[in-house]
């Protein structure tokens, strides 16, 4: 089995009008066995920067710790937070990958193909925070319900210039 499918995961992010949303499922599994239903995949780097890490859970945890370390060093030296574009360059350098800047949405995880379909059909540009929350929640739920390795609820974060709203959404618990 591929290491990307060992733990199971689904992560999606969308851009709205002056806001963004990032969401993930909550299942932690070991192949067919479910270990936990409250696993965190979306991490905060700073107030306006969040990263969702899908794939092998141990590597997501290690990578998150390394990224926070690098960002804290940057904060000490520059006395400010990293810009998202800069951070994206850091992540892509760490992963030896060329990054792609999306203007609408990005998806990742074992449910990525379903997520692409759901997001493509539900997304429209310049949505407000409430509409963005609804859209991303429905897209996530619909996709993970068809993937046995991800699901057991969802975690959605909507960030606007003034506030951050975290919600846990209930889906099919299986």
């Amino acid at each position, binding site marked *: 089995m591929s290491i990307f499918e060992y*733990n199971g995961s689904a992560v999606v992010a969308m851009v709205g009008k002056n806001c963004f949303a990032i969401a993930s499922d909550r299942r*932690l599994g*070991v192949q067919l*066995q*479910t*270990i*936990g239903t409250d*696993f965190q995949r979306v991490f905060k780097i700073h107030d306006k920067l969040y990263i969702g890490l899908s794939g*092998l*859970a*141990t590597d997501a*945890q*290690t990578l998150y710790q390394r990224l926070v370390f690098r960002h804290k060093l940057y904060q000490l030296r520059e006395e400010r937070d990293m810009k998202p574009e800069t951070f994206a360059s850091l992540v892509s350098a760490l992963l030896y990958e060329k990054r792609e800047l999306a203007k609408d949405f990005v998806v990742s995880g074992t449910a990525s193909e379903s997520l692409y379909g759901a997001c493509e059909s539900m997304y429209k540009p310049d949505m407000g925070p409430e509409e963005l929350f609804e859209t991303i929640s429905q897209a996530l739920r619909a996709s993970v319900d068809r993937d046995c390795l991800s699901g057991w609820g969802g975690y959605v974060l909507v960030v606007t210039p003034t506030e951050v709203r975290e919600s846990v959404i209930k889906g099919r618990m299986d």
Partner: protein
Amino acid sequence: MECVIGVVGRDFAVVAADTSAVQSILVHKTDEDKVMVLDSHKLMGASGEPGDRVQFTEYIQKNLHLYQFRNTIPLSTAATANFTRGELATALRRNPYMVNVILAGYDKDVGASMYYIDYIATLHKIDKGAFGYGSYFCLSLMDKLYHPDMTVEEAVDLVDKCIKEIRLRLVVAPQNFVIKVVDKDGAKVYARREYISDSPPDAAPATASATATEA
């Protein structure tokens, strides 16, 4: 195959493991302790490659003691879990430890907590968990019967039900188990569950009838 079970109750945690040391078809001993007492208020139940298990748990225990000597205060359970994960993660892509760990501890400020750390260094805080073939039977039992804030008697009863199921349904099941509890008063052996013993014949019947569990 080795089984480790863990349950968190009200201000305490239970970690149980089988006590068989097996190599191929031979059972070397039936009283191997796989739940290490890391310090006064921490338990680490470990399963996996026997050499790695002993080596790794002793390594964590000694490092915990070193921290306490240097800093005069013990490391918290959460910090211990993250340290353990770090050691497993660092070794993962060089010379991995094939050891799965259930770490439980009691801290004055946080209460009882338990962490699941598998051999590839996946860390997750849990209230109930299990490793090994026994987990296929225990996890669903625990999902059904567990509730938060259990008493020690209720939690050990749940563990006993898991042990009963393992003995009944797992082919080549381990027969003997040790149950350890950690609470505000410290980490200690709570009970042993023995069906069969490799100690002298006089001792065996007494042990079997006194501590064998029944429905």
